[in-house]
């Protein structure tokens, strides 16, 4: 999607710069994204608008092409890395400007598993969508999840695994939540390459999320249901 000619980002109008940022995200051009984010902020854009209209929308396009087999993991990682560059600038500003918050999530890769690429993508996309996310990192025993849930104010628990040998551990966490009588207080989302919808149902998760974009949409749906129930 990149042009052959050199483009001077600062010379583009807002209407030209935002689509250019979508292209640059698609092409994983981190430096250009950082530059463009700063340009929009200097032009008086609200951090939340930069995030949603430029970065999240750009990643949404990346997500669609990944789902459709046009882009592959390496390209998605480069795009994510570019978005990360932009997010690093926006995150502190978003906190200051009181951007809308959709909900709180705790996420982590399960015990025995050190793979975190998918989890990191979900974390970034959830943050981009307006969720506050606490990332527990990799290799988490059940205690890590339970302690965090008990000591924080969370709506959603996300668990990730890449290995068929570690994914059953998700059930250990959910069963422990049931034992402690806390399962129904949270929406539990699970994901990872070897998982599927059937597995998600079998272990008692609320939903299996195929990719980061699906995770965001699923989380939004559950939060909407929760608000509807509370207001009913």
């Amino acid at each position, binding site marked *: 999607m990149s042009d052959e000619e050199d483009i001077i980002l600062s010379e583009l109008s807002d209407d030209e710069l935002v689509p250019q940022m979508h292209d640059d995200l698609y092409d*994983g051009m981190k430096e250009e994204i950082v530059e463009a984010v700063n340009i929009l902020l200097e032009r008086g854009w609200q951090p939340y608008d930069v995030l949603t209209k430029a970065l999240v929308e750009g990643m949404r396009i990346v997500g669609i092409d990944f789902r459709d087999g046009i882009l*592959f*993991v*390496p*390209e998605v*990682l*480069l795009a994510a*890395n570019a978005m990360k560059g932009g997010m690093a600038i926006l995150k502190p500003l978003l906190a200051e400007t009181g951007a809308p918050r959709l909900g709180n999530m705790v996420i982590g890769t399960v015990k*025995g*598993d*050190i*793979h*975190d*690429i998918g989890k990191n993508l979900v974390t970034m996309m959830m943050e981009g969508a307006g969720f506050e996310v606490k990332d527990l990192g*990799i*290799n988490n025993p059940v205690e890590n999840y339970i302690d965090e849930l008990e000591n924080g104010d969370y709506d959603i628990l996300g668990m990730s695994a890449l*290995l*068929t*040998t570690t*994914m059953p551990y998700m059930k250990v966490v959910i069963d422990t939540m049931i034992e402690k009588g806390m399962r129904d207080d949270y929406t539990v989302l699970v994901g990872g390459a*070897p998982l599927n919808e059937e*597995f998600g149902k079998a272990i008692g998760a609320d939903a299996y999320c195929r990719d980061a974009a699906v995770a965001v949409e699923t989380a939004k749906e559950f939060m909407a249901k929760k608000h509807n129930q509370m207001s009913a």
Partner: protein
Amino acid sequence: MLVDDEMLTEQGLDASGHDSARVLVLACGALAREILALFKINQWTHLDLTCLPAKYHLYPEKIVDAVEKAVIQYRSIYSQIFIAYADCGTGGLLEEKCKELEVEMIAGPHCYSFLEGNEIFAMTSKDEITAFYLTDFLVRQFDAFIIKPLGLDRHPELIEMYFGNYTKLVYQAQSKDCALEIKALECAKKLGLPLEYRFTGYGDLQSTLAGIKISN
């Protein structure tokens, strides 16, 4: 019989169809050389070998259907078929399919485990979840199975994202081969990991194939 790694990766291997073979071993292409070596060492003339493409290692969702298709294809030719795959990322689906097809398979989660020996691997692997394993085949085919599929040939800057949580590369050697040891060291360097050399030989692969009982 010399087998070509690229052919094993992309196409697999056809059965030789030699007259004395009664049992067909249906294996992952990544195990072809080792299994043929075992046939030769042990003079297992009652066994024949066919392999599915080794690249299914990267797409385990393709293994179950491919095994079923091959079993159906060869069933009328061989009196017995043995599946030289472990679970290999199928999440129990291959085991279910093998039961349905009434064929036996190798026990264990994957080749790294049964090549080291399932019991030993179960003990050691608990303490080395940050180890990245390579076998002889994967050392030889490092570019085809690691570098290219992960896009590291085009974007070496992604190495940290993929391998940042690993602390070592364990080369599980099936054969004593200095050239492969040197190549494994190069692989480890490319990933920015220290190399641990571990000679496994054929592990449970040998004992499992030796234990195939020919049914009447």
